[in-house]
């Protein structure tokens, strides 16, 4: 290279050939690591060197052009440097144009944001190249706005495209935006629709950020589109891309938050308070009180002990609660009832059981009358309490309502949440077993059937053994965690099967297999949890079989959230159903599932799906090994 620096007569094309060959063989980093900085320096002021550099790159043979251009784009420390090094290569050379405008942006997505900045900045810097910039933007928007792309491409690629769009927007000047305002608007509307339709929150947010940015550029005055979403690092980074840092920076650092007004908007804006407003600085009246005699002393206070906080009393009986919630106009009482309801339900299980379905109905339709904090949580807890107190009829009611007409999506998803929470509570021994007074219960043990007896028999036996054995030394008694029968086992079927039954029957307002794939996703996840909680219950095999069939019919669903749910169903199944029963009853289905899982691992576009499928395959392997290890 020092030869080149000295001798100006070397044949440039030879060097180009060498460069090209080296780059194609994968040695871009090394050679360009040396070449690019030198060229950067040399081309800074020297026109001749610029020309030499341009000739250098232009002479690289077609088949190696991609590697060279890519290398340059990646290594150049800035868009202006890239411009000096490559010149108008993209305009003159078809292959280079293809690489820069199509391949890097649309077909690959592994490059960093700095590379994108370089590339797009390079396109923006010269008037000949700006036409390309516009074309690039249009194509990017087309991809961004196509619903099939949103559904099928991985989130990382979508993020990449969004970044590219934002950077393009930041480079465009007013007249250019004017000329393509209509197209921008149309593609934005279409794109936003597809993005908001998606079940993954990340994609929804991407859509919102890009749409906001586009709208702010095309409507410089007048109301601007504004979405509500939670800010996080990703959105802040995206927004900061909208404003370009001046090209004199040696290293275009992103995100340059201080300059970017968009990032400033992302931070909570503290309104500038009136200059005249004072901060509360309490002036202590100490000096005054000593000087003035307390002439207030002749005002003798009355007895104020009765002055207490006003408390609205909530009703004490469940039936009263029902009355208040359905009819009462008194909002204070209504509020107090909503807050007290869960406690009341749990303390009066017998009374609740009498009116359980009615209470569940009221709670499902209960809407916020006044603004209570945590209303949604209070309602949900009350619903869970009713469901756990009287599982069978209430679960029958709730599952039937899940598939009925005239419910909102939110209500249907609430039903699913309540079922899951109740199932968790029923199956977990911690929530159970409030300390029962053993003395009072003991003489009645023979009379009361059911869970009482099953808990106390152990104690009776222990007592008998204790009284009959002589102990030489009492060792340290480890407290065993109180165990109790899994209450979920008797009702698991009631929770599970009705949910699975009607999923393929569309109603006028509710079509699980069609538009409402968000609810389908939630349903699938719910089934997975229910399956998992049903471990060691009697119904688990039947549940497993039904679930496997269900998964099989839906396995090619378009929505990745649904697919993730299906894969967790498989995991729950493999974990809950005892291995012997799995192999005995469901061998063929399992083999088919295994081959499907293999397919998913290789071909599914969504990273989470692939991961889950891999876990399932591992689980299956473990099961096989376990069974083989046990001597039959």
């Amino acid at each position, binding site marked *: 290279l020092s030869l080149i620096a000295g001798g100006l007569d070397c044949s440039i094309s030879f060097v180009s050939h060498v460069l090209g060959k080296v780059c194609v063989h994968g040695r871009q980093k090394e050679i360009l690591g040396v070449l690019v900085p030198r060229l950067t320096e040399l081309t800074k002021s020297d026109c001749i060197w610029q020309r030499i550099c341009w000739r250098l790159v232009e002479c690289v043979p077609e088949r190696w052009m991609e590697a060279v251009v890519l290398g340059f784009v990646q290594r150049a420390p800035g868009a202006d440097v890239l411009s000096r090094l490559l010149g108008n290569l993209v305009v003159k050379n078809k292959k280079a144009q293809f690489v820069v405008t199509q391949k890097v942006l649309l077909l690959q997505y592994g490059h960093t944001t700095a590379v994108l900045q370089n590339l797009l900045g390079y396109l923006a810097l010269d008037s000949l190249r700006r036409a390309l910039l516009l074309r690039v933007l249009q194509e990017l928007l087309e991809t961004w706005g196509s619903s099939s792309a949103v559904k099928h491409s991985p989130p990382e690629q979508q993020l990449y495209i969004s970044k590219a769009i934002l950077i393009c927007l930041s480079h465009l000047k007013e007249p250019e935006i004017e000329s393509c305002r209509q197209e921008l608007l149309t593609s934005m509307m279409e794109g936003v629709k597809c993005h908001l339709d998606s079940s993954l929150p990340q994609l929804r947010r991407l859509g919102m950020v890009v749409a906001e940015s586009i709208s702010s550029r095309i409507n410089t005055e007048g109301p601007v589109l504004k979405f509500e979403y939670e800010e996080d690092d990703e959105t802040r980074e995206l927004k900061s891309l909208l404003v370009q840092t001046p090209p004199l920076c040696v290293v275009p650092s992103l995100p340059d938050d201080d300059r970017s007004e968009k990032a400033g908007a992302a931070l909570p804006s503290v309104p500038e308070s009136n200059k005249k407003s*004072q901060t509360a*600085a309490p002036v202590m009246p100490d000096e005054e009180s000593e000087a003035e005699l307390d002439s207030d002393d002749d005002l003798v*206070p009355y*007895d104020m002990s*009765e002055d207490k906080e006003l408390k609205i009393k909530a009703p004490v009986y469940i039936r009263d609660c029902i009355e208040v919630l359905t009819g009462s106009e008194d909002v204070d009482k209504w509020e107090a009832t909503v807050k007290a309801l869960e406690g009341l339900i749990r303390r009066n299980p017998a009374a609740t059981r009498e009116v359980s379905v009615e209470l569940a109905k009221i709670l499902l339709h209960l809407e916020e009358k006044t603004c209570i904090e945590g209303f949604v949580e209070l309602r949900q807890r009350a619903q869970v309490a009713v469901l756990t107190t009287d599982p069978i009829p209430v679960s029958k009611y709730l599952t039937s309502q899940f598939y009925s007409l005239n419910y909102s999506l939110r209500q249907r998803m609430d039903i699913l949440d309540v079922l899951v929470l109740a199932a968790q509570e029923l199956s977990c021994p911690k929530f159970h077993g409030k300390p029962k007074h053993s003395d009072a219960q003991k003489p009645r043990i023979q009379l009361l059937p059911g869970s009482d007896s099953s808990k106390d028999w152990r104690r009776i036996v222990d007592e008998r053994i204790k009284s009959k054995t002589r102990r030489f030394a009492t060792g340290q008694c480890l407290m065993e965690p109180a165990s109790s029968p899994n209450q979920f086992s008797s009702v698991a079927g009631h929770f599970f099967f009705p949910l699975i039954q009607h999923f393929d029957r569309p109603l006028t307002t509710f079509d699980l297999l069609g538009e409402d794939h968000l609810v389908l996703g939630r349903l699938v996840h719910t089934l997975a949890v229910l399956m998992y909680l049903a471990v060691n219950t009697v119904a688990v095999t039947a549940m497993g079989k039904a679930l496997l069939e269900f998964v099989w019919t839906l396995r090619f669903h378009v929505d990745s959230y649904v697919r993730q749910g299906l894969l967790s169903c498989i995991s729950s199944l493999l974990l809950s159903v005892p291995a012997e029963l799995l192999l005995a009853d469901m061998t063929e289905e399992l083999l088919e599932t295994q081959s499907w899982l293999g397919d998913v691992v290789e071909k599914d576009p969504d990273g989470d799906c692939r991961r889950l499928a891999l876990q399932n395959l591992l689980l299956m392997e473990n099961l096989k090994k376990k069974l083989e290890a046990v001597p039959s």
Partner: protein
Amino acid sequence: MALPPPDPQFVLRGTSAAIHTLHFSCGGQEPEIPVLFSGSENGFIHVWNLKTHRVDTALDGHGGKSVYCVETMGGKDRLLSQGRDQRICLWDLAEGRTAVTDSVFTEHVGFCRCSLVKVAQGRWLMATAAKGLEEVHVLELPSKTSVCTLKPEVGAKLGMPMCLKLWQLSCGSQPLLLAGYEDGSVVLWNVTMGKALSQLVCHQEPVMSLDFDSEKAKGISGSSEKVLRIWSLNEQQNLQVYKTQELVNAGISDITIRPDKKILATAGWDHRIRIFGWKKLKPLAVLDYHTATVHCVSFSDHRKPQERLLAAGSKDHRISVWAVYTHT
């Protein structure tokens, strides 16, 4: 051993609607009857005879819309009332008449009570909220000429004015206005020049009511929170927080300081009237009679101190009248 709280001296019933405003007029010489004016939600203004405890006259001037402010202008023959029909009516009640002599159309759709101050014989200044969201108009009465419009600067975001108090330090000095706004701040305005002198953020919630003692340059404000704020005005006409008084229950509808500046009364959403000493805000009494939120309290202007009364009007359609601390 503290005495149990007193009972009301008497209770006035018969309005059949919630009472939003009260005003005494008892300063006249004998044989003038002391009266109490009350404005109700059904649009009527009742004139109560405090000797017989019955309604002498019922005035209907606001077309059935709630009356939320009544004031007298120099005696009980000239009455001013403000209602939710966006009008302020001036009445002539001398010799048994019940006529509306004049009215001002304020176009104000909120609940901000107007404030009156006498600047000269026969001339009054009235401050009232107006059509513009954050504006306060000051008019001269009875000529109805506009003196100025007090507009906060752009971007101040004070919200609607909630309560007003016009005052002058002495006759002939510049009138000043204290206004409490929806965002919880209290602003001191110079009416003649039409500009704000000082602003203090007193509450996080809208200021529901305020009152001011011009002698001690101290004021008090209450809102829907659980605190009362006492603030003072220093020589540079700046507002500063002086003290904070915690309340047992949240929500204050009205505050009024007795004319002798010894005690003050607050009307609470918890159905109770509280009496505090004004000097140090020592809690003195909690008057518990009403069964719904108390909307207004008012002290009487009796010449003889022993006859002084306190009246409270509530949503439960009753006006309770109390005699407290009359011996000081």
